[in-house]
């Protein structure tokens, strides 16, 4: 599948934004968020800012962006529509959470409840995004049990690093947030590895013989192409990436996306320049996750490409 920048930005930025929202909300609900009046309002501004940037980027992918509002209508059947609705609904508890924290105070039951609601709404939106991909039956690398949990894990991972960085700059006690961020970093690395092992061992969903109705005859191979130049189907769904490049990029993702942030979190935990270490961890993780998301698309194959003799 063609990796379009707009969609890569959408999924990574909303992951950072809603992940941060989830950490803020859960910590506030549990009463372990440092009592700084500005912490939640600023955190929510950053979180919603990142998520909004991702959502705006996604509209650049549309052929008719001015009609984007129509996408809220089909939530009964479409995960893309559900994502849009969930993203809009998330603004309400998130803004209310910031207002209550500032106005009523961190210990109020309403603040803590709203924090939990905001966290659930944010993670719910990430789940809807993941299900857009996980529900597509012709793409085996997406239509599997890894996609939805992975998106949630990566959102909590990227948001967790951002959360740790935010706390480091408040000068508050860090060890709980950084330890949890470290744990989710390790989980994320293992989840990605497990996904790559899974797609490498997957067998194609079908055969060209079944796609052409010629299964009774035996194996089928392509003879002549319908056209000499690339068409929409081949550009969008026949994207091919060399295995050796994929392998190199996978190592890069593991290194700068997971290993380097994990080391920096250890430094922060040891009290070595935690503010700087956590910010650097966020930057490296962002680069790593962008490459990871690029691979998520580039390595995905579509059944329709088989009609042209390409892997499906």
């Amino acid at each position, binding site marked *: 599948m063609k990796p379009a920048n707009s969609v890569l930005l959408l999924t990574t930025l909303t992951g950072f934004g809603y992940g941060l929202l989830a950490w803020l909300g859960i910590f506030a609900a549990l009463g372990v968020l440092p009592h700084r009046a500005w912490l939640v309002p600023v955190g929510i501004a950053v979180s919603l800012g990142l998520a909004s940037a991702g959502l705006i980027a996604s509209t650049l992918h549309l052929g008719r962006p001015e009609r984007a509002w129509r996408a809220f209508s089909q939530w009964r059947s479409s995960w893309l529509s559900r994502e849009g609705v969930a993203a809009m609904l998330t603004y309400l508890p998130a803004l209310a959470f910031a207002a209550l924290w500032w106005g009523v105070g961190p210990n109020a039951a309403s603040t803590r409840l709203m924090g939990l609601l905001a966290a659930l709404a944010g993670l719910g939106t990430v789940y809807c995004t993941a299900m857009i991909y996980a529900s597509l039956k012709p793409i085996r690398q997406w239509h599997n049990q890894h996609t939805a949990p992975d998106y949630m894990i990566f959102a909590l991972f990227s948001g967790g690093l951002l959360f740790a960085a935010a706390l480091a700059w408040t000068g508050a006690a860090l060890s709980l947030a950084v330890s949890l961020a470290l744990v989710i970093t390790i989980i994320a690395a293992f989840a990605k590895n497990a996904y790559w092992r899974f797609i490498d061992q997957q067998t194609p969903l079908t055969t060209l013989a079944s796609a052409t109705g010629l299964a009774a005859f035996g194996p089928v191979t392509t003879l002549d192409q319908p056209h000499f130049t690339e068409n929409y189907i081949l550009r*969008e769904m026949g994207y091919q990436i060399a295995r050796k490049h994929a392998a190199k990029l996978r190592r890069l993702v593991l290194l700068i996306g997971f290993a380097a942030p994990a080391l920096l979190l250890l430094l922060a935990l040891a009290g070595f320049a935690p503010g700087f270490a956590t910010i650097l961890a966020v930057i490296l993780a962002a680069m790593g996750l962008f490459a990871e998301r690029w691979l998520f698309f580039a390595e995905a194959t579509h059944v329709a490409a088989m009609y042209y003799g390409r892997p499906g």
Partner: protein
Amino acid sequence: MTSLPQPLPGATKLGLVIDLDTCVGCHACAVNCKEWNTGGHHAPLPDHQPYGAEPDGVWFNRIHSYEAQAPGCGGRTVNFPRSCLHCEQPQCVTVCPTGASYKRAEDGIVLINTDICIGCKLCSWACPYGAREFDEDAGVMKKCTLCIDRIYNTSLPEAEREPACVATCPSRARHFGDLGDPDSAVSKLVAARGGVALMPELGYQPTNRYLPPRKAQIALPPAEAPTQAGTGVGAALLSLLDRVLSR
């Protein structure tokens, strides 16, 4: 709504039956389809550099050719026209966030309302048959309409009320009709020839059927034993003459 209509027993399911035995791979269906539809329901269809080095555009039919390895009879060339199958479980419809994609309850035709399509392309990702093509000029998705503007068109003579691809096929490899009615001509054809659905394992329940090529009926002549006419130049000449005349 992009939710699917409730399937009713005995409901009309308009679709195509494509005969892979008689298709000669001439692309006439693709050309007539483009000709009709660039002025029809989804008009216009992009057609960039049609005579240039990199022609590109939207086509609702793509004509492939494959080689099937049948045991005992070598490779068999099969021409294969590919178009929308108007599935009964079309995921291209249910993934649509706007309601632009829909399946008609009355005849099963899958259509796009290009006035409300936002061009997110998700429907094309959801189709395993590669039937939907994006119109970069209009920013919306396009697809086969089963020539809805021909089959119900009362200004056309009744005999012409069939899809453009069917009307133009010189080898009568394409048939149009109601596959929901077991007594229709197309249903009987499918039953008689063992028509198949493409990739049934994916669960889209396509309406269109493909008729597999008939098994080869021509028996190969038995190979003759080489004639031996002795040795020497005369014999070699005779042997050569024998080979030439045997061709």
